[in-house]
């Protein structure tokens, strides 16, 4: 990875790390609250359900506090990543989120075909012929391996119903 020169900008590592640490601490607080709800003291059957996770939550908050302190004390203004790199990452995360969100409605196969085709055409700039070959080829191979040979059912939508797969 390149270290930041003057033209490359992006969030600093310190800032992102502090954010991540705070999120972890918040998670710890949620665990503590949930454990308190479940009961952290002793009941008739011994320690109650929240007993163990309560201390886990305390550990998370405490170690995050130390990590935050360490992180902020560090004299380091390196970049977490450049904006361009983060854009690359988001260009995968967002379509994958749409793909995953659509799956319950369209089924796995249709969503996968569109997802693969989009990815190859938009990010890879391949010829349509190549794009279609891979986009259809992979789900078909998957169908035979998973559903036919190993009998693992995969999510299906209206198109698969219509094709009676």
């Amino acid at each position, binding site marked *: 990875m390149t270290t930041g020169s003057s033209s490359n900008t992006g969030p600093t590592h310190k800032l992102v790390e502090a954010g991540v640490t705070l999120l972890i601490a918040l998670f*710890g607080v949620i665990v503590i609250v949930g*454990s308190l709800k479940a009961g952290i003291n002793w009941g008739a059957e011994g320690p109650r359900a929240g007993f163990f996770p309560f201390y886990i939550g305390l550990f998370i908050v405490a170690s995050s506090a130390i990590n935050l302190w360490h992180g902020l004390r560090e004299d380091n203004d390196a970049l977490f990543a450049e904006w361009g790199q983060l854009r690359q990452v988001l260009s995968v995360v967002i379509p994958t989120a749409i793909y995953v969100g659509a799956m319950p409605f369209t089924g796995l196969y249709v969503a996968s075909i569109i997802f693969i085709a989009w990815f190859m055409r938009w990010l890879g700039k391949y010829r349509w012929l190549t794009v279609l070959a891979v986009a259809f080829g992979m789900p078909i191979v998957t169908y035979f391996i998973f559903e036919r040979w190993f009998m693992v059912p995969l999510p299906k939508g209206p198109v698969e119903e219509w094709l009676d797969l």
Partner: protein
Amino acid sequence: MEELVNLFHGFAVALQPFNIMVMVLGIVLGVIIGVLPGLGGANGVAILLPLTFSMPPTSAIIMLSCIYWGALFGGAITSILFNIPGEPWSVATTFDGYPMAQQGKAGEALTAAFTSSFVGALFAVVMITLVAPLVAGFALQFGPAEKFAVYFLAFCSFVGLSKEPPFKTIAAMMIGFALAAVGLDSITGQLRLTFGFTPLLNGFDFLIAVIGLFGIGEILLTMEEGLAFRGGKAKINLRVVLQTWKELPKYWMTSLRSCFIGCWMGVTPAGATPASFMSYGIAKRMAKNGKNFGKGEIEGVVAPETAAHAAGTSALLPMLSLGVPGSPTAAVLLGGLLIWGLQPGPMLFVEQKEFVWGLIASMYLGNIVGLIVVLTCVPIFAAILRVPFSIIAPLILVLCAIGAYSVHSSTFDVMLMLVFGVIGYLLKKCNYPLAPLVLAIVLGDKAEEAFRQSLLGSQGSFGVFLSNPLVSTIMILGLIALFWSLIQEGYSRLRSAATA
């Protein structure tokens, strides 16, 4: 002697034609997984786990463990030819492997890497054969307090031995424990930490976490780096192999040392990655031409590869004999045992002899098959890497989604996988180790159960964890592991004070 008889029975099981077939299939799939960025041992095995639901358990574990061996072999190919470690444990292999490839000695480097991997693995399997039944027999006497002490030791070793900052390791581990606690409490039957959200009733499945954290997270990291493969050609012919084999015995000392380091780091759950670095570092210090390390020294390939394979293999020892996996991949295999209806732990050696010894025998055979496959097929596997990432990435993402879905036939899990992926990307970038997080999700419920049962027995007194010599020894070992880096630092300070 009884072990030898059992082992022969195991070979009879492993040599059944169907089992040999799944062995070869597993190795080939494993090497492919090891070569591809974004698909590693742990999540590769996790994705393919559903394929084994309909197989007999012994064939299933043979296939999955062979995928693991294949992935261990495969990591070296990309390190040497492309300077891109396919797996974290082959990072140290790039230091000398890639310079060798640039000098036109790719064949020698690959042969050395594969052979060393094989030697390391074989050493570890022999150790498992001899030691695992003893450990299991010993562990049969464990009560809840001893069980908790073993978990304690395992997790403390993580904190003490990992190269990440200790409090980050603790934070990652505790996140894992917290995720494991979500859902139905196994002792009281009460719901907890679900906040009224029904899909969380059954808690978080660690397989989903593995696929997300390691699979999706890795793809995101690769995307960020904008990966382009440039690299040497792979040519191995018999002459090069034989020539390298003639040269390798010279490094027997390095090999043996790396085997020990690997086994030690594999049994304590530090894992293959630190083992390979440590072995490389020590070899560099001890070798005659240590200052040439990093410029293409064959010994610099031998050391990390031997240790990584020894560690990767011996990680199965505590998994089989104690039910405590030594690495994320071993954890996934343990998850497989549960799905096939087997209870991991010392009882396996009593109740499921055929399974255990079939697996151990398959480790011998699998590594031989693996060595032959990688030596003969390197050019094919290297060709896979020339397929551009913009084709491979969507295919891997789809595979991850299929794997995540088929664990419980749930589309909610697929969304969870993506969330874990983004979390994995952020955590990894911020230097949090992911392996303890995964192991904590796997072992969380069991550790908690052992902890609460011990306290129940002692009416809440923590004295139970020091109540007899056995449990106190394990707990104290755990504390030593926890503060290992502090102890080391103190010792070296004392020594420098003494010499000054």
